[in-house]
């Protein structure tokens, strides 16, 4: 499990991105899931989570040269930006005050569990993964997925059941 403690692997990537902005893509790939997971637990819809995630990375890229290496992982800096972005978002919606963000020090554990979910989905058999992604992420009906896969609706439902059982098995120990 990745923690918020120092990670010297980040340093060369950060320095590369500070010299050549296009290298920020590597930091993005490395941290995307965690930043997204930060928002996924705190907003109501996927659209919101995606918009806020994009905002964080755009801000981070714009300010990457002001980042000073102090031994902490890059993702901690991103979480800081994310917290500010979220606070502003909530204030704009008038739904929460900034104080309602609460203590974010436990954010790391929550995020890591979400990251594990993503990895568990990735590790499913191709057909099972496809059904799960189309059903939950793309929110397609069983009928639509059945047509896409050229299978019966019953077969797709069975695939869905097996996929969820596998996910339960893989995540069971962490919940």
């Amino acid at each position: 499990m990745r923690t918020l403690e120092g990670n010297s692997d980040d340093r060369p990537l950060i320095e590369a991105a500070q010299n050549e902005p296009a290298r920020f893509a590597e930091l993005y790939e490395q941290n995307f899931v965690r930043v997204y997971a930060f928002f996924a637990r705190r907003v109501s819809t996927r659209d919101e989570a995606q918009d806020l995630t994009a905002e964080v990375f755009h801000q981070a890229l714009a300010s990457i040269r002001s980042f000073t290496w102090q031994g902490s992982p890059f993702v901690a800096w991103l979480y800081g930006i994310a917290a500010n972005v979220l606070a502003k978002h909530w204030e704009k919606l008038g739904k929460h005050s900034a104080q309602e963000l609460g203590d974010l020090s436990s954010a790391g554990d929550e995020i890591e569990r979400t990251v594990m979910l993503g990895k568990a989905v990735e590790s499913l058999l191709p057909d099972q993964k496809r059904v799960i992604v189309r059903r939950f992420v793309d929110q397609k009906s069983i009928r639509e997925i059945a047509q896409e896969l050229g299978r019966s609706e019953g077969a797709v439902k069975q695939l869905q059941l097996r996929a969820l059982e596998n996910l339960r098995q893989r995540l069971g120990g962490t919940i």
Partner: protein
Amino acid sequence: MNREELAEKLDREIDGFIERNTLSEPAPLDVPFQVPAELRLLPYLPSEEFRARLKEELLEQAESLRSSRVYASSEILPSLNQPSVPSFSTRQIAVLPADPRSLVLSFLSHAAVVALIASGIWVGHVTLVEKRTLLSELTYTPLPAAKGGGGGGDRSAMRASRGTPVKFADDQFAPPAIVVHVEKPKLQRDATLIGPPDLKLPQSKQPGDLFSPNAVIPSNGTGNRGGIGDGVGTGISTGHGLGDGPGLERGYGGGVYPPGNGVTAPHVIYNPDPEYADEARRIKYQGNVVLSLIVDPLGKVRQIRVARSLGMGLDEKAVEAVQKWRFVPGMKDGRPVAVQVNVEVTFRLY
């Protein structure tokens, strides 16, 4: 409950689960086994499409940062004004200092929006599609030497008079003429230009050079060997041959030029907005489509192709709209010519 019934029940639960579409009040799935609570997050996993698109946007941002002077001077860059290792305290989030310049900018932008709404100019569009030509940012593929065209004239003192081309055909029995020297020819034939017979150009009763500055005095032009124009041959225009245009031999147009080297860039005068594709709007898909096209001497758009695709139906929407655009054509030696340009269409949802 057998597996078939279990799969049915699970699917009904999932339907309701997705319809609620909220994380704030998650409901556990009511199935005979305990689904891990984390599965409630499944509907909120990001789509791969979003992830890839965001990466593209960041690379574009990186490119503009790299090329900007701002990036070259780190002192100009605004600092986040916070430590590199943030502490997750609510106090810090709540009391972040505001930059006075941001406040001024914010005030001005809000005032501008209020003014727009009050004036009725802005009526609350949800979608704004920007478009702009990228004429100065292009690396043009070298184009072949100019082709197509013709010219003629009877060494008149006046430049050829303005008119329209005659029809194109595979053969030419009689060259076009404005000032007719043989009043009663023994064999009457329609004047033609050599070129594809299906090539349609503006037609009128008055033959002539479509772009000639001489709109008053009838003249076959200063060229020679017959035809109309200031070139050579039995065609029309300043070229050399039996067609129409500043090029050679036959056909029309004089080839396609890139802007620069004496060729001016076309200037858009009518550019209706593209529509947003429904699917792209639904998932808030944004980005840029770059189209490569030719603006012909009449200012119309020809031969559009997608140079940088965006997908999700937005390429097609961009092509559909740009096809209707009209330009002031590019000019070479005072005459309109076909010019290849790229056009960038930016799709943004606000």
